[in-house]
């Protein structure tokens, strides 16, 4: 897709989103090593074009579900770095008042029905949100982000069957980052392209370069149009690569399982660098403008960290709250 076909403001928004995801995750990786963030942290550095391209085609009314590696999807859907950072720090000011943490952020007002610690669990939930939308004339679409690993879970197959059967406004975005935990996709998955599994459920299956934000945006726009017309779901496989490990700090407990040359080659196709080149080629974007966005993003992330660090921890009396709406 040609960048010059998209309004400059929207291109800048995409660029800002990608840089925000990158800086946010680089920052939390470093903070984790400093012992400031408890629990598990999974980053998606190198995969920023997928959430950015997908969410650029969505509105606040649309729903998403995401995964343990979900910071990017939340930021792209409008998540505030401050409240996300505070959640990662286990603070009262976080999106979930410190009860969810990195793997479980939810924001109802943004249509984020949750990151999820269980691989594949968000897929039927997004399908159900699409079902709810179908009662209201397909006013919104529901996107499920998941990885290559989740495409081997039963919930993936059951959900695609249901959504196709009922022509639900669901969009299944498989962010294939080449590894499921510590195992290469080629060793865990029967097909080379996960998108071909769509054929088994009579829906379109599209492979897209997951490092090309505009290509992702383009296929998403088609999927959204189809979903809103009541024509049913689409499976999009966005091929990308996980630059970092499965979980931050894994070097402490697992041996090397990837060829360093493979990682280095993947980094040659940095989605932010690729997008920057495209932007500069349009002729109407100046490098100085992108540098200004980078500085603004850095300030936003610095503010988010300061906000999280200075926020109060929850009072222990809150531990027994929120189990039920009506206890």
């Amino acid at each position, binding site marked *: 897709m040609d960048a010059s076909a998209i309004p400059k403001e929207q291109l800048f928004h995409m660029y800002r989103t990608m840089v925000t995801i990158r800086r946010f995750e680089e920052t939390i990786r470093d903070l984790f090593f400093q012992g400031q963030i408890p629990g598990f942290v999974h980053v998606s550095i190198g995969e920023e074009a997928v959430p950015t391209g997908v969410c650029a085609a969505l509105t606040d009314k649309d729903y998403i579900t995401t995964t343990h590696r979900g910071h990017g999807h939340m930021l792209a859907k409008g998540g505030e770095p401050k409240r996300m950072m505070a959640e990662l720090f286990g603070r009262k000011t976080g999106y*979930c008042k410190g009860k969810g943490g990195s793997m479980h952020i*939810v924001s109802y007002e943004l249509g984020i029905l949750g990151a999820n610690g269980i691989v594949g669990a968000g897929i039927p939930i*997004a399908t159900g949100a699409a079902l*709810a939308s179908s*009662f209201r004339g397909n006013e919104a679409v529901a996107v499920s982000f998941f990885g290559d690993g989740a495409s081997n879970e039963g919930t993936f197959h059951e959900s695609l069957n249901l959504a196709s*059967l009922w022509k639900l406004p669901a969009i299944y975005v498989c962010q294939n980052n080449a590894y499921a935990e510590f195992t290469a996709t080629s060793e865990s998955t029967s097909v080379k392209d996960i998108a071909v599994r769509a054929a088994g459920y009579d829906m379109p299956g599209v492979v897209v370069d997951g490092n090309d934000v505009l290509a992702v945006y383009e296929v998403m726009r088609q999927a959204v149009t189809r979903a809103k017309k009541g024509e049913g779901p689409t499976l999009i496989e966005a091929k990308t690569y996980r630059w970092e490990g499965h979980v931050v700090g894994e070097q402490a407990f697992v041996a090397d399982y990837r060829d360093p040359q493979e990682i280095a080659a993947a980094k040659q196709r940095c989605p932010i660098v690729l997008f920057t080149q495209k932007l500069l080629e349009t002729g109407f974007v100046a490098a100085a403008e992108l540098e200004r966005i980078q500085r603004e993003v850095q300030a936003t992330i610095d503010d988010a960290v300061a906000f999280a660090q200075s926020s109060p921890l929850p009072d222990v009396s809150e531990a027994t709250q929120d189990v039920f709406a009506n206890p």
Partner: protein
Amino acid sequence: MRDIGFIEAINEALAEEMERDPTVFVMGEDVRLGAFGATRGLIDKFGATRVRNTPISEAGFAGAGVGAAMAGMRPVVEIEFASFFYCCWDQICNQAGKLRYMSGGQARMPITYRCVFGAMGSAAAQHSEVVYPQFLAAPGLKIVIPSDAGDMKGLLKASIRDDDPVLVFEHGRLGFTRGQVPDGEHIVPLGKGAVKRAGTDVSIVAIGAMVAKALSVAEELAQDGVSVEVFDPRTLVPLDEDGLLATVAKTGRVVIADEGHLRGGAAADLAAIVIDKGFDYLNAPIKRVTALDTPIPFSPPLEEFVLPNEAKIKAAVQEIAR
């Protein structure tokens, strides 16, 4: 008051709530046809959009129910038999039960799961199980076990209106019973037990299909001069602790009758609560009458041997009665 069937009570509750609230819809395997009768005829009144046949795909549709609830609907999801819950364990325990808490109170989860449970005669271990103790150990889920047609209707209506995930367990044997249901709007609030028969000597705390058995034992023992009170907690979560402790305080002697297993079961849980909070009221050890700790067998004599029944309840009462 009207005399209606247990299944009819379910059907009335569903129809009334669907009539009242357009966000209520029913989905599950064969719900259009209404395999056991509970959903029969709803299709004619509410159409295929709100009475949705699903594939045999529990994880898929149990999870879709979670998403639909979060996105503004009020689904009633039928899981044909309680043991099939194992096929969608993650969606119930990890998702429906936890998402409100994990989201710091944001997630709305007005979903009701209905299922048939319990031994109904040589259905063998995968169609006879009492699964609610497993859910009792998973915080965030409400557990409802009606023991007669009146409670079935009133509790199901309350469950559908509740904004939390509720699991309603309908004993297969009760499907063939009839009972009294009040005319007009009939709601039984969750968390309120019922004294089904008043007595002074021994309390039988009975769950689900054990209530009718306890009542028949009480009738028999009355002729021997033993006055038995029968308390039905009706919901295990929330639990009417005040009601439970009140019957213990009244009689000081307690038999807990439940079709679940002895170890880790609902009877064990209730007994522990009575000991923690009502120890001073007790004049005798608490007796639990439950299934033996085996899977439920197929062959009739084996099944009968494993399950709790009137004779076992009566023997337990006699053991601790003065």
